């Protein structure tokens, strides 16, 4: 009996709507703290959100008036569901980025991965090939729309093609692949040894953002340090006229391996102690953002439900118009109304 009384007291205190206001203020403080110090953001947001959900559940359990107002109840329960879905999404989500050379298939390797502890990777089922892109530019090198051709094989073994870009991700196995403004040129090499050929590409820094430093160091398959630079001063994207992303006319490269310097045109090769390096030519590469969150459609459903239920609650609640009564009352009552409250709904 005593335990029951304690529980009821705790529930009543936990259901306080004054506590709700305090927790909303705490959540605002958490949002500011998380904005200023990213490292504490998860805790700063999760703690007040969790307490708000508990506060809501306690209110539903102890306040009959809450349960009698169905739209208000639905709105708040949908908000609680929104918080729980966001947490579930965070635990099962994956975010990262990939870079794909034109003509090369995605091999499942994601850079800068941020995956939730419950994420089970199915990236092996999300194989696609970047088949090149077009991007228009307005004067001032202002990027226009991106159109990226991609190809993949579906579950039935049929080859599928699509053009993705702004607002149009490629969705495979639940993973959403978005093109990004990060893209550039990629010299393609073949490393030829007695054991066979290995082909690869070096992604030069993004273009046109880093157009003045189109060079990158990398390591050959035998570990030899190398450095490559695109040998062109051509302004591929006109700064003062409508233009488009394209390969430069001059595709020669400069290679530095150890103390030696080489200039190679497409098809050129150099013999090195570990093998022969063949410069096959210049292609483009595209940077993609990878996003996976199974809760996305449910988050949208919960947020829309919460808002529409709240709108319905307000519409039902506000059918009366007490302020009009004050105006249309006789003059002497009207002046009295300036100091005396009308019956207002809360």
């Amino acid at each position: 009996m005593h335990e029951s009384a304690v529980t009821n007291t705790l529930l009543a205190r936990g259901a306080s709507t004054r506590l709700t206001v305090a927790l909303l203020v705490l959540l605002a403080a958490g949002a500011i703290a998380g904005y200023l110090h990213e490292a504490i953001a998860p805790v700063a947001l999760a703690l007040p959100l969790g307490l708000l959900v508990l506060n809501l559940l306690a209110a539903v359990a102890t306040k009959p008036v809450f349960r009698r107002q169905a739209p208000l109840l639905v709105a708040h329960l949908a908000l609680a569901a929104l918080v729980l879905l966001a947490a579930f999404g965070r635990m099962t989500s994956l975010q990262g980025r990939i870079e794909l050379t034109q003509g090369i298939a995605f091999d499942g390797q994601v850079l800068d991965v941020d995956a939730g502890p419950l994420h089970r990777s199915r990236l092996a089922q999300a194989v696609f090939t970047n088949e090149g892109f077009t991007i228009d530019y307005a004067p001032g090198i202002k990027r226009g729309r991106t159109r990226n051709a991609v190809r993949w094989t579906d579950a039935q073994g049929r080859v599928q093609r699509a053009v993705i870009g702004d607002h149009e991700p490629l969705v495979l196995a639940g993973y959403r692949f978005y093109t990004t403004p990060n893209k550039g040129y990629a010299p393609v090499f073949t490393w030829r040894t007695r054991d066979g050929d290995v082909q690869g590409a070096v992604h030069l820094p993004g273009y046109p953002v880093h157009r003045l430093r189109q060079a990158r160091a990398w390591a050959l398959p035998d570990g030899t340090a190398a450095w490559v630079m695109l040998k062109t001063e051509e302004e591929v994207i006109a700064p003062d006229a409508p233009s488009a992303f394209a390969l430069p006319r001059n595709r020669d490269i400069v290679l530095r391996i150890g103390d030696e310097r080489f200039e190679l045109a497409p098809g050129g090769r150099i013999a090195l102690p570990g093998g022969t390096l063949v410069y096959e030519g210049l292609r483009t590469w595209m940077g993609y953002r990878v996003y996976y969150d199974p809760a996305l459609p449910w988050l949208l459903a919960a947020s829309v439900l919460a808002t529409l239920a709240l709108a319905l609650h307000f519409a039902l609640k506000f059918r009366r118009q007490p302020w009009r009564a004050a105006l249309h009352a006789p003059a002497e009552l009207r002046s009295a109304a300036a100091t005396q409250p009308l019956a207002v709904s809360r």
Partner: protein
Amino acid sequence: MSLESLLLLPALGCYAMAGVAAWVEADRRASAFASATALLLAGGLALHTASLAARWQAVGHGPFTTMYEILSSNVWSLALVSALVWARVREVRAAALVVLPVILLLAAWLLVADPAPGHFPPTYFTALLYVHTLLGKIYLGLLLAAVGVSGLVWLRRSPRGARRLAGLPSDEALDELAYRFAAFAFVFDSLMLIAGAVWAQDAWGRYWAWDPLETWAFLSWLALAATLHARASLRVSPRVHALLLAGAFALAFLTFFGVPFVSTSPHKGAV
């Protein structure tokens, strides 16, 4: 001078004169000035609509990219919502005394903003831009209406205000009406955030990333949520409620017009 400017300047002039007419109407209790206020507001809106259309035609896109365009479109939408409230809720037309100075402040800012056209980024080629923007404008307009109505409670505190605004409904009735505007402002704020999140998911590959604008938009939403809860649970007085609404509006104002000064990096889609 462009056609847009030729139309904009008299439009802003009409808004300014409407503010003067509303003040005279309330101060002198001269109901004849109500017609002048209505005429000036309607004339200003018509000219402003034509000005926005002329710019749209000239630059090839809507007023969404530069501070000049954002200010102009918000002056227009706030004036439109205020005019509709003014026409629909005749009992509290004096709210124009609070609302019109805010609109005129934005109009003055508009006059000194750079009118050069901006780049229309590829992430803006979506119907969600219009949905998100429209919902945001309704939200800010309704919140300003709430501030206008509740602000009358404070205007009435002065001896002159007490005399001139005595014919208005009681403080509690004004408070109730302000609450209703704020409640629906909250609904439209929520819808604006939802539309923005849907847009952001496919424009930037994430629905929410706590960039400066998103963080301040969330804080504005929380401030309004806390204000609505405070009125219901703390039973705050009409004067305190008016202050809370003014605070929520100040945060929304900062979110709409101030964050571009805090950060220029994210949430522009132009990178």
